[in-house]
């Protein structure tokens, strides 16, 4: 497409007479309804042949005005809404919000509640990574992992359902602790799950890690350097795969994370393959944390003393946690009333998606799919 073979070169034509065949660039629209964009994401690609020269993301199709809604709800009433942002990691969303409001109220959840929080959040991290792996592999052409990961993720959702009655938008935590005591046999279920899923993760790895097609499709694809990650504010497994050993659970521990022994897996090349390895290792580390938490779960109350009508003193707070996708932050402004004056959600998917353009430049169209997958975005969180 680059050179015209007709007698008149495209360079001789004036702009108005040029057709798309005469141009070196092709603009291709992808989405918003596209199976590989993981939701309603529209990407406008600028192509030279099959090579990506640049792209623009068009987002906002799922915008529901979560931050506006927050200003018209009480602190307690807004709690279930946060589950609907990153709906595959609803527990993490709830944890971040509850902890932010607790900080603003200057209260702390009791130790037992913190342990329950850690167990559920880490289970959710495994579930989120499993869903990521299944869909990401499917996008690249490996269909089997999807069936494996969804089969195993079901076990986590069953635990959630038994604990709080919901599978996805769990609303598991309350401001000040947890609403529900663990059900009878909870610890047994969790331990059973750990011994069930550990060999399954090996199974996923067996399918992919040395699979030639997988390696060819992911190695040196969508590479991003540590420097660029930091400049673009990219966090989570993407940052770690580029070699930055940074995890909020370690850097600024929250809940009960300082009590557990776990590693922060990192990669070196910052490509799609390294991000895959980092997430696989993270799942194993999560299991380690869950095991320690279940073994050491203390007895005691699960709710701090919180008044029914919450009126945090006038002030502002920023609190962030390590969600499966990266840094999830809440900036809350209180004016002393029962409703937050402003709630700002700092969504990891939104910020990470911004690096898509940088990561796709010079790559092939097919790799755009791989890069969108490897960023692990959830459009519900991007658009809020």
């Amino acid at each position, binding site marked *: 497409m680059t050179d015209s073979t007709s007698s008149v070169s495209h360079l001789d034509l004036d702009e108005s007479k040029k057709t798309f065949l005469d141009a070196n660039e092709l603009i291709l629209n992808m989405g918003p309804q596209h199976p590989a964009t993981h939701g309603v994401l529209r990407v406008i690609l600028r192509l030279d042949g099959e090579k990506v020269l640049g792209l623009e993301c068009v*987002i*906002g199709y799922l*915008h529901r*005005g979560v*931050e*506006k*809604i927050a*200003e*018209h709800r009480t602190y307690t009433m807004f709690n279930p809404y946060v589950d609907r942002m990153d709906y595959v990691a609803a527990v993490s969303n709830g944890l971040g919000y509850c902890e932010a409001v607790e*900080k*603003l109220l*200057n209260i702390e959840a009791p130790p037992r509640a913190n342990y329950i929080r850690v167990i559920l959040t880490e289970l959710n991290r495994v579930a989120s990574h499993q869903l990521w792996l299944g869909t990401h592999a499917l996008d690249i052409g490996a269909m089997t992992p999807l069936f494996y990961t969804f089969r195993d993720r079901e076990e986590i959702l069953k635990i959630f359902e038994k604990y709080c009655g919901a599978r996805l938008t769990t609303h598991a935590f309350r401001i000040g602790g947890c609403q529900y005591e663990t059900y009878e046999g909870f610890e047994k279920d969790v331990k059973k799950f750990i011994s069930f899923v550990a060999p399954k993760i090996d199974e996923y790895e067996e399918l992919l890690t040395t699979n030639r097609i997988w390696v060819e499709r992911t190695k040196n694809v969508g590479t991003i350097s540590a420097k660029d990650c*930091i*400049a*673009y*504010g*990219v966090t989570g497994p993407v940052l770690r795969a580029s070699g*930055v050993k*940074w995890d909020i659970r370690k*850097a*600024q521990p929250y809940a009960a994370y300082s009590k557990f022994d776990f590693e922060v897996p990192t990669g070196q090349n910052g490509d799609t393959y390294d991000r895959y390895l980092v997430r696989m290792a993270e799942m194993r580390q999560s299991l380690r944390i869950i095991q320690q938490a279940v073994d050491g779960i203390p007895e005691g109350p699960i709710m701090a003393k919180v008044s029914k009508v919450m009126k945090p003193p006038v*002030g*502002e*707070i*920023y609190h*962030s946690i390590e969600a499966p996708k990266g*840094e999830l*932050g809440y*900036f809350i*402004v209180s004016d002393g009333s029962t409703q937050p*004056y*402003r709630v*700002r959600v*700092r969504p990891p998917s*939104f*910020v990470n998606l*911004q690096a898509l353009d940088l990561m796709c430049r010079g790559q092939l169209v097919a790799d755009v799919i791989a890069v969108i997958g490897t960023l692990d975005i959830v459009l519900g969180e991007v*658009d*809020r």
Partner: protein
Amino acid sequence: MVWESALVAKLKGQFGSGVEALTYLGQNYLQVDRSLIPNILQILRDEEQFDYCVDVTAVHYPKRERQFDVLWILYSFARNERVRVKTQIAEGEHIPSAVSIWPTANWLEREAYDMFGIQFVGHPELKRILLPDGWKGHPLRKDYGIIQQDQEWVQINLGIESGQ
């Protein structure tokens, strides 16, 4: 509560009364004069290692003379420390963009523009990000109602009477 540190002493020495350093619930923030943006942001990144811009956002106080708080949440990997920089601007007043300091500010500033109508000068492409381009109004302003919408846009583009 007043926040005291070597960083604050340095900034105060340089900018004098334009900087106020405070701390609340163990979190430090700088209340700075609008004219010090972007210099102070540049210094925080270049000299104080605040290399990661976590968030850029705004808060609307319609009763105040200078209606908007614009704030930057920063983090330093080397110091493992967070700081918030806050400034006040009036309706229609401009604020320099931080895209040349942290590329990540690009989408974050677009969102602040979309939701609050804050004009970031020097932004490469300041346009709406979550709402459609032709939308009227900035929803996170306090005078924008919760069920309010751009009726005209909805009727023309969606072909329905109301999105509610």
